[in-house]
């Protein structure tokens, strides 16, 4: 990633990575702190804004790109990882960060998440998990508890077991997996820096409360706890350890050694030479 530590080093503060656009988020939403963590991380790394791309799908959390002063791409629901993969593969010189919610990433975008983990393109994915669809006003997501009965869509509760993003990421082969909590933006910023610096696909699961549709998540600040182990580079060991995790342990689970997927062609033929292949 060192190639991106360019020009503007030292000159930029977190504020310089914020745009002048006022977020649409509800007061108290965890996503504000994630935004603060992102700008802090970018300033910390001294990334040039014009060489940084922030990609997202659709949802409250997916609004982040326009709130930064980097290049941004706000695509369609669930496809941020596909768009970001195309961007990074075509433009390996850029630093690519991807943001979105648990619905965007694990429901409509679940297949892309699986394949982004196994493909291991060098980019960083921050999932802001509030265990609900915020933007569509409070429906169950793939990380919602089976007995959560507050949604009009599933008044008896979704009735299906939630997935655990960290173990899913490990199972699918992500190369760097960590969990943070929006209530501690400094730590989230640190995880983002680590994730960006780590080669390959980095998944940072950030617990980010939806104060409007899951007000009880305000209590997360007393539920979260340090994960308590040192990061490992062995996915099997990380997987074993995660089996004991309660979903609220914070820290880096895996910093693996898989080679990033970065195929690159080399121009060894001209159009003229290819054309000659058609001649009779």
């Amino acid at each position, binding site marked *: 990633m060192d190639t991106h530590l360019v020009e503007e080093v030292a000159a930029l503060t977190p504020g310089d990575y914020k745009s002048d656009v006022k977020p649409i988020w509800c007061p108290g939403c965890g996503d504000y702190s994630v935004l603060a963590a992102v700008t802090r991380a970018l300033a910390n790394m001294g990334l040039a*804004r*014009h060489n940084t791309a922030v990609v997202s799908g659709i949802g409250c959390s997916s609004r982040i790109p*326009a709130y930064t002063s980097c290049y941004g791409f706000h695509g369609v629901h669930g496809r941020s990882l596909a768009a970001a993969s195309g961007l990074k593969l075509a433009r390996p010189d850029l630093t690519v960060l991807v943001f979105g919610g648990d619905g965007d990433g694990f429901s409509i975008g679940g297949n*892309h998440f699986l394949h982004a983990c196994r493909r291991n393109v060098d980019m960083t994915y921050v999932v802001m998990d509030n265990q609900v669809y915020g933007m569509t006003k409070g429906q169950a997501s793939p990380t919602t508890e089976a007995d959560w009965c507050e949604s009009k869509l599933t008044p008896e509760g979704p009735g299906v077991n939630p997935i655990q993003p960290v173990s899913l990421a490990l199972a699918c082969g992500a190369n760097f997996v960590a969990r943070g909590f929006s209530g501690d933006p400094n730590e989230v910023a640190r995880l983002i820096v680590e994730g960006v610096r780590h080669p390959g696909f980095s998944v940072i699961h950030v617990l980010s409360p939806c104060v409007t549709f899951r007000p009880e998540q305000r209590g997360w600040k007393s539920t979260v706890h340090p994960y308590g182990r040192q990061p490992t580079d062995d996915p099997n060991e990380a997987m074993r350890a995660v089996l004991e995790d309660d979903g609220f342990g914070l820290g880096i689970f895996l910093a693996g050694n898989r080679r990033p997927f970065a195929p690159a062609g080399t121009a060894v033929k001209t159009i003229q030479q290819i*054309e000659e292949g058609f001649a*009779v």
Partner: protein
Amino acid sequence: MAVDSVTIALVGSGGAGVMTAGQMLLDAAAQVGWYGLMSRSSGPQIRGGEAAALVRLSPKPVEGPGDRFDLIIAFDWQNVERFAAELPMTAESVIVTDPSQGDVPAVLAASGARIIELPIKELAGKIPGGRVNMVGLGAVASIVGLPRAGVDAVIDKALGKKGEGAVKASAAGIDAGAKEVAGWGLGLELTAPEARTGIRWNISGNEAAGFGALKAGVKFCAAYPITPATEILEWLAPNLARTGGLLVQAEDELASINMIVGASFGGVPSITATAGPGLSLMTEALGLAVASETPVVVVDVMRGGPSTGIPTKSEQSDLNIAVNGLHGDAPHLVVAPTSIADCLFTTQWAVHLAEALQTACIVLSDQSMGQSRAVVDKPADQPFKAQRLLADGLDSGELFKRYAVTGSGVSPTAIPGMPGGEHTADGLEHSERGLPSSQSSDHHKQLDKRLRKLVGHDYGIHWADIEGDGDVAVLTWGSATGPAREAVARLTAAGHKVRLVSLRLLSPVKPELVAEALKGVSRVLVVEQTHGAQFHKHIRAHVDLPGTVSVLSQPGPLPIRARDVQQALASIL
């Protein structure tokens, strides 16, 4: 007396090697200076199952199937009735059949075609490593008067990698077949080729589309395989890599289209190819490309629909979804090649247009062009390249207006890496700066802008192929153009005056251009390969066609033949 065109079907179940024999026949004909076309008809089986290589040869360029099959040679008759309807014959046709494979199926024999027996399997059996397809190739080559040197020139190319033994066995098989038919005197010798001027190519529509993309400067492709588009992707994979680009296999079409949107946001000209089912999955992201003004090109190689439909056979029935499939008011480009060779130009042009107009462009090819191979004159070089209008003066200190409302509708853009051009490209409706906006004024301005840039663009002469004059016109598009052109040529030769107007630009329709092309016409025949007359309805939604209008609209998998168009024209002449 020699004939000016001969149409041959090599028929046999999988393993008989009809496609190899067909390709070698086409290659050999090209070697000696003939033109030709080979299309494929195959069943749904992955391997095995009924198959036919359909080859038409002529001293003149060939752009469509013949009216009937002059010669059918069958290595076996397994399941041939499944595509008998695609093998029209008359009493002048000849069927060569192997007596060991049973009787000629009644559906084919009913044509009254002359039936001649040839013990193909027995002949092949006498040669160590001998194969029926080579015996058949020898017989056909001899029947059409293809000089042996032409065949020899291609044996090595086709079979060399299988070793000397295979090459020898093939040559012996070809000899055996040729020897048996010598003296049959079927009258199917093709007129000798004219002296060759210029370079000729042997190319499939799918290869041509891939090459067109490359020529325009495409450097990225995301791919999900689907019949009959896969060959574009498989051709692009090594050729993009060799020219410094990249193809990546995606997990599905939702990913492939979003990947190319992402790559294109990065300033890299990008493409994907698919067929109807994939295009259906891509429509949401095509709308994203339109709204975010991110250029992308999707080549849709059409097959029979709806749903999974008939994957291996051609139809023009994706026109509706290509033109109207996006939600919201989402003006975008739809273009169609008018021949196999034109798959090159049209795809190259599509990339150029998408980039120049910062929008999505769908190229509507089809199975009959994509998976057919033709010997053609090398297409003329065209200057069309991917070129995006980039903003300058980005160091002014002002916030960049990505979606600035301009006279042309095209807004100068900035791509990541350009300092001062930072912005968020958005599928949400937005202000000129790109910030999400639900205000009517922003929505209306951006809608107008996105339409204006397409409608106001000067597409030059390329919007249609217009040939001939007279007050009768054939209005058509895509792979129906070849047969229509042939029908027009025949009628013109017979002293009639008929015009051909084949649209390459299907959306936006330019009513004033269509009206001009049809000026003075009192009868129009619309020709297309759909069940629902999709093209006819599409055109009529935009243009008042002059005089009386008749429609020849026939669904796949039956190809439109020159004879069909000629008959339809005869009734209005």
